[in-house]
């Protein structure tokens, strides 16, 4: 073992012993420190997993969606537009989609009604999202009755409940077949909610969108990558807002750390004085104190991060979910997939360990430059 490493080992040895001798003070610091790491790490892990979840969801969405605009408002789009688009280079498939929202006064929530393209649903049946099934207490075979646009009652039999792996978005979903959908909302044949285009080559998406806006001037094309980008920015921004809000507690923590580091007890001062008198150099004392900070930081960081990990991935981020998920009555029960990412850990490091260290540099230096002959006075 090299001389350098051996010396660090001696210093760490001493530091561990000295931390152990002042359990009360150090546990207090560790507790507050861990709490700060926990708060920030929870926010990061949670909003990061929301982003990922959204990304996974949109993976299977069409690359381009065309909406018709009337007087600046989204309107139904005639099927004839599909023919007007004709053959655009790079478009692999195009089709009309039917979907919409329905307000259920019984639970005061909005459902999303959707006609699936790849799934046959029998007339009078529907498939419901897990959120709806939970709130209305539904299982396969149960009946649910809604009032349609024309005022008649429509009874649907629940054929199935959707799997909950990406529940964040499917929680409020109701799947029905096309004929039922049109009858329920009173939408004429030949009209769609919007059109979807599949474009295989990502390089061509933008070109396709450009052509569409020339061809169909009363429509707006929406690109999947734009939605993803917007989600990304939105979640980043929310995360940033929460961090700014937490800046107050961070500042309190820094002041607390400063206070702990500069308010050395008489006992600790005497100890540093003894060390200096028996031959420790100022730099040795600074190194020893550095290790003290590093060990406390490491402990707090690991504990806090672990606690946040458990909080987010096993307890559904119970503390922050309402802030970060957005407003909804049907809260999706959402089990994000666990993961760890370097950018996050580095960012978290700068929000916790870095301020702690900055706050303690000057107090450590002050303590370390005690007069070596102080113990003789």
């Amino acid at each position: 073992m090299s001389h350098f490493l051996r010396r660090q080992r001696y210093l760490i040895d001493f530091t561990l012993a000295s931390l152990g001798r002042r359990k009360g003070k150090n546990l207090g610091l560790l507790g507050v420190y861990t709490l700060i790491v926990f708060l920030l790490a929870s926010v990061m892990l949670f909003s990061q997993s929301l982003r990922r979840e959204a990304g996974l969801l949109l993976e299977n969405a069409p690359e381009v969606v065309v909406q018709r605009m009337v007087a600046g408002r989204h309107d139904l789009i005639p099927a004839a537009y599909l023919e007007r688009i004709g053959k655009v280079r790079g478009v692999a498939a195009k089709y009309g989609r039917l979907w919409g929202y329905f307000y259920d006064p019984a639970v005061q929530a909005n459902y999303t009604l959707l006609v699936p393209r790849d799934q046959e649903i029998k007339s009078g049946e529907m498939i419901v999202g897990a959120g709806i099934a939970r709130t209305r207490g539904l299982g396969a075979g149960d009946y649910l009755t809604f009032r349609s646009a024309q005022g008649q009652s429509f009874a649907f039999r629940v054929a199935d409940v959707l799997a909950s792996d990406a529940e964040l978005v499917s929680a409020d979903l109701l799947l029905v077949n096309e004929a039922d959908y049109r009858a329920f909302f009173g939408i004429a044949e030949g009209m769609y909610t919007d059109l979807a285009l599949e474009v295989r080559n990502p390089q061509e998406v933008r070109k396709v969108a450009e052509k569409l806006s020339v061809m169909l001037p009363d429509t707006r094309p929406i690109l999947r990558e734009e939605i993803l980008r917007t989600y990304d920015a939105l979640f980043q921004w929310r995360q940033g807002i929460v961090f700014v809000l937490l800046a107050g507690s961070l500042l309190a923590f820094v002041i607390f750390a400063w206070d702990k580091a500069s308010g050395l007890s008489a006992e600790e001062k005497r100890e540093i004085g003894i060390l200096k008198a028996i031959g420790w150099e100022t730099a040795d004392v600074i190194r020893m104190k550095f290790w003290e900070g590093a060990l406390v930081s490491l402990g707090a960081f690991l504990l806090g991060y672990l606690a946040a990990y458990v909080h987010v991935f096993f307890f559904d981020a119970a503390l922050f979910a309402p802030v970060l998920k957005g407003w909804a009555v049907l809260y999706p029960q959402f089990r994000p997939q666990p993961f760890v990412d370097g950018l996050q850990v580095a960012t978290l490091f700068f929000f916790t360990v870095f301020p702690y260290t900055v706050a303690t540099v000057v107090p450590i230096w002050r303590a370390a430059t005690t007069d070596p002959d102080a113990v003789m006075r």
Partner: protein
Amino acid sequence: MLLSPAILALIGVSAVVTALLLLASVFAVRVLRHWDIRSGSELQLRLERSTYLISTLVTFAIAAEVVALLLFVYNAEGMHTQFVGAMCATGVLNVNAWGWPALLLKIAVFFAGSVWLLLNRLDNQGYDYPLIRLKYGLLLVLLPLVATAAVVQLQYFLNLNPDVITSCCGSLFSPDAQGVAAEVSSVTPRTAMLALYGSGALVFASGAIYLWRRRLATLFAASAAVAFPIAIVAIVSCVALYVYEHPHHHCPFCILKSGHDYIGYWLYLPLFTATALALGVGALAPWRHIESLRTAVAADARRYAAIALAGFVLFYAVATWAIVRSNLTMAGTWW
């Protein structure tokens, strides 16, 4: 601007590091004005003790800058989904004119700070602190560099406007013209390769001469200073292409990803360390004639030179290995 935690952290770190160096400079100015090594006065004792604070502050600031440099690159990588046409970190740095200067300044801060720390370490071994005025003078040069890096980085982030859907229908998708070029310009692989191995040979020759004969330290430092940018250019225009096995992907950052076996770290870590130490050898060697520093210069410079050479060996070996094992054939086809 983007209000992401990573960006907040980077801006915060740069500001705090600048503040720390400012504090160190205040003490440094006091030392420069009143330093008198022969005096036994209490003032002199206080000044001596403040040198510990200055060393600690600068060490800490530079360490933070190193981590921040990594975070800066990770962050650029993480943000590429938010900009039209940005395929990876390169594209994000291209979003506005401040991106590359911010990165280059951060690298400059790393080298300047490392050399300062090596010089400081040397001086602390001389019982009369012979370089104290020089090193604190240099600290006053380091401060504006760090401050500039912080300001440029701030400008970069402030001018970073993500392409986001707005409800106004006219600007729903960003026109391609505003898209960001995902590539860095490059020289031909042939030229890059020749320069890479040419400068490598120069570094090895001058380093070996220094280790054996204790001469030409300045040449060693200078050749490292030349070899570093050449190595970066070579990575961009040649080595990276072999790693990606794609003749047009010139990105110096994607090689850091898991998909490429993290080979980037094997290239950059030795290269940065070796260059910093080689520059350090150049900064240390001129003081070998000072009585109180003679043994320290001999020991330190020799060790730095040895580690630097080992680092360069590792760098050139990894670069060569990346080229050799690649399935991409450029010789004859693209040259």
